[in-house]
């Protein structure tokens, strides 16, 4: 009975929705059944999957750009006091800009192709990654570097074999924060003038295909969840050694 308890909340919510939908009688609130069948239809005729694929593609494009720019920059700023002093004022000036801010300027400059998503989504996702990389670089334990240097490791070896792995847990946290931001900005860009799930949802709403619209929204939620779950899975596999995952040491 306890295992079923979580489902009770879901069931209750579904029943409430059903009751409210019948009571309201408006087209704005279709029953869960209608939404479910619309969902199945959209999946079967490929519309939803194609749209979600586009959205996920835009998201990953932007995230890739953000990682390539934000992570090295952040690591450099974290490890080098000079870099920090040089770049922090500029960063603090650009930071208050809300993530969607670049959409209007980039719109006319770049059109709604891949470059647009790289710029806009990349900009939005850049800051969490940069800040996380900076924190990771600053929090590097000095004895780790000292030991490596005293054992004769050169700068390249230290950068790749010591600094990079040591920073990964912090970077993973940054990625976890950057992911939803990237998704949101990607969907927003699509709504303003692109294609993909954002455009689809808006189009369905404007043409009054309401059950399909809800189905799409849920599909987008599922996609977001899948991305986060995928990241978690990768994190657990690759970063098993990070403090959060450590098991207690056995007593000798």
């Amino acid at each position: 009975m306890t295992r079923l308890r979580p489902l009770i909340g879901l069931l209750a919510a579904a029943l409430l929705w059903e009751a409210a939908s019948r009571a309201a009688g408006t087209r704005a609130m279709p029953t869960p059944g209608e939404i479910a069948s619309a969902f199945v239809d959209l999946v079967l005729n490929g519309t939803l999957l194609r749209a979600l694929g586009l959205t996920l593609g835009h998201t990953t494009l932007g995230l890739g750009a953000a990682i390539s720019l934000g992570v090295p920059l952040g690591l450099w700023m974290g490890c080098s006091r000079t870099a920090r002093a040089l770049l922090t004022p500029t960063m603090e000036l650009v930071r208050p800009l809300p993530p969607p801010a670049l959409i209007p300027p980039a719109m006319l400059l770049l059109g709604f192709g891949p470059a647009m998503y790289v710029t806009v989504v990349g900009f939005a996702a850049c800051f969490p990654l940069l800040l996380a990389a900076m924190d990771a670089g600053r929090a590097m334990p000095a004895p780790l570097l000292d030991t490596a240097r005293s054992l004769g490791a050169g700068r390249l070896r230290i950068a790749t074999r010591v600094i990079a792995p040591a920073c990964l847990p912090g970077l993973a946290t940054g990625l976890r924060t950057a992911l939803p931001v990237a998704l949101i900005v990607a969907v927003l860009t699509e709504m303003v003038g692109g294609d993909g799930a954002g455009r689809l949802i808006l189009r369905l709403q404007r043409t009054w295909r309401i059950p399909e619209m809800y189905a799409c929204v849920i599909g987008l939620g599922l996609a977001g969840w899948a991305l986060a779950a995928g990241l978690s899975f990768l994190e657990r596999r690759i970063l098993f050694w990070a403090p959060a995952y450590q098991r207690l040491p056995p007593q000798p």
Partner: protein
Amino acid sequence: MRLQAQDLGMDYRRTNATVAVLDNISFTLADGEFLSLLGPSGAGKTTLLRCLAGLEQPTRGVARIDGRPLCGATPGMAMVFQDYAATLFPWRTVLGNVLFGLECRNMPGSERKDRARAALADVGLADFTAHHPWELSGGMQQRVALARAVASGARLLLMDEPFASVDALTRIELEDLLLRLWSERGASVLFVTHDVDEAIYLSDRVLVLGGSPARIVGAVSVSLARPREQLRTRGESAFATLRSELFSLLNKGTAV
């Protein structure tokens, strides 16, 4: 490996002032000697060690290794720190950690593995090569750090209060392990500690640091018989004499 410090001084530049941490440090560590640096916490012992390891440039004076001036990290040295968790790479296994010191050298992979395994067997961790450092207890982790230093073939060991973070019983084991490794390999050891008894038990000679900026307040030769034994050596009357000598030097240092 012979280490020589000549008039070493270290100043740290703060925003408004310059703080002198070390001043006029001169001593020689002979080849194969076990030398302890004794002093209270915050006396600048770690700074001195880092200068001698080539990790920092002293403001004044020069350090020489086998007669040649020190510039940057020199091969043939290894450092062991107090915080073992911060020096062992958690993403590598125990074997991987010991291998790190050897990866920087030119030798075939199988030879590296053999040397690493031999070093781990030497410290008693032959059965734990596939474990990760955080699966081991504090004492075992410090043994991994020792094995890593030993496997790299270091001729000079620089140790910064390595046994200060383990419990007393483990510390006894590690002290004896260190002495055994030292006598087998014949490396020179510079051992920083704030524990008077430990300094006497382990070393051939003890230098006392004190004052601010830190200077060498005195040096004491330890002529107790080797091999040392925990109960016998610590029970000798000479041990007590040395202890009171060192304590008075330490007091002189703090009064300065």
